[in-house]
């Protein structure tokens, strides 16, 4: 098979898979929320309510689409699209499985093996703020704008700590390529063992970056109506909500890749490269991803939402100094080879 043909097929699969997982994350979210609250959750559409995401999607498409008269029409339409695009772009550099060797030809299970993979993720994720900000600003609504500003400042604050926690990780791995980082974590040499502190900071920042509870401040019903997406209706709102779930999926994938060994599992090096190894590796990877999606949902239904000043305090006065401390400690460990 031509490499380009393979790449196009692979990218389409990853694209479809992200959408599919995001779709069923909404179902998992509702179902788990219900279970954690001693309820049953959606169970009418199809067996166990499995068709509920489809019903929700159909509902969103058929809802009335409303664009405020005083809004900036083009930006208003662009906002959700931008958010969706940036959410989908991130999965490009994540290695989902070990290389597939078929008939002597090697196929990489990664859309693009950039040697600056981490930087790429950070670049794209920080662009995601534009989707929120553009949408909130274009609505021409004070509350939407306030919500958007809150979202933007939150994302920027937490990105700093996130970046700093990654610096420590990069010091350990001495590479920016996600594939190399995964390959280094063979056996049980998962980065969580070497960077537990950095992992903690990273996961807190990941929660804040995906705008999920306890950091879901952009959408405080009580103070800001719906936050930045107050004026959005129909599938444009759907895009915002949907992209959030794609972000959760991608964050889970990044977490699994950076700290939990990605597709690595014990004894993987004993296996011959081939179909079985690739499929097994992919299963391990997706198992880890689903665990993190579960964690995201679990925490959302456990912790109450932060107050805004507490959020800013945590970001700037706690997480950034801690991640700097983490860098210093990591540096000392590497320097003195403890």
């Amino acid at each position, binding site marked *: 098979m031509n490499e380009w043909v393979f790449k196009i097929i692979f990218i389409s699969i990853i694209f479809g898979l992200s959408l599919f997982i995001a779709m069923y994350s909404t179902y998992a979210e509702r179902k*788990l929320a219900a*279970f*954690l609250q*001693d*309820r*049953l959750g959606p169970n009418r559409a199809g067996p166990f309510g499995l068709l509920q995401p489809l019903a929700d999607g159909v509902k969103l498409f058929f809802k009335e689409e409303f664009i405020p008269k005083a809004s900036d029409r083009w930006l208003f339409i662009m906002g959700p699209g931008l958010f969706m695009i940036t959410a989908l772009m991130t999965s490009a550099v994540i290695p989902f499985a070990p290389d597939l060797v078929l008939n002597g030809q090697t196929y990489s299970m990664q859309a693009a093996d950039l040697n600056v993979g981490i930087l790429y993720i950070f670049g794209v994720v920080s662009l995601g703020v534009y989707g929120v900000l553009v949408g909130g600003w274009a609505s021409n609504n004070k509350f939407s704008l306030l919500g958007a500003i809150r979202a933007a400042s939150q994302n920027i604050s937490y990105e700093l700590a996130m970046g700093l926690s990654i610096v420590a990780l990069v010091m350990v791995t001495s590479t920016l390529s996600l594939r190399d980082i995964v390959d280094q974590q063979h056996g049980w040499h998962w980065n969580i063992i070497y960077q537990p502190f950095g992992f*903690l900071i990273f996961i807190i920042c990941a929660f804040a970056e995906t705008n999920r509870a306890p950091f879901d401040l952009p959408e405080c019903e009580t103070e800001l109506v719906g936050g930045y997406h107050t004026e959005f209706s129909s599938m444009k709102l759907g895009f915002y909500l949907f992209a959030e779930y794609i972000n959760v999926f991608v964050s889970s994938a990044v977490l699994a890749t950076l700290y939990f060994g990605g597709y690595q599992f014990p004894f993987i090096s004993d296996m011959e490269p081939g179909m079985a190894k690739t499929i097994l590796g992919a299963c391990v990877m997706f198992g880890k991803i689903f665990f993190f999606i579960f964690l995201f949902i*679990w925490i959302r239904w*456990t*912790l109450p939402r932060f107050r805004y000043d507490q959020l800013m305090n945590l970001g700037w006065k706690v997480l950034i100094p801690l991640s700097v401390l983490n860098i210093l400690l990591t540096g000392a460990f590497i320097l003195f080879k403890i």
Partner: protein
Amino acid sequence: MNFSERIYLPAVFKGMAITLSHLFRKKATIQYPEQQRPMSQVFRGLHILKRDEKGAERCTACGLCALACPAEAITMTAAERTPDNKQFYREEKYASVYEINMLRCIFCGLCEEACPKAAIFLQNDVMAPASYEREDFIYGKDRLVEPFLQN
């Protein structure tokens, strides 16, 4: 606050353990239309006009229930029994029309208490059903009188 309280994480993990334990707990949900919870013994639901042991209507249209009704939901017209419908009614007088407006009724049970003939009761296992039409809430004898006992 001491150190472990100030970093919040122990409390966070404790909270997560609590929510996780709820994941496996028995759910309190009742699947309503298919599965119904038994009503309380003292629940006051839909009215019923009882018959006596011979199958004749107990109501004699004395009007005490209508008088006792604080919401004035009950209206009735009395009629005199004739020889050819003698077996249907217990005494000389009977209600030819007996209507309860369920939109006015407050299900207080005073009609039940006022009735000297033990003719009207509020059932504890039937609720007045919902409807889209106001007219459907005026219950005549066709919907109030107890069906014939099957012996």
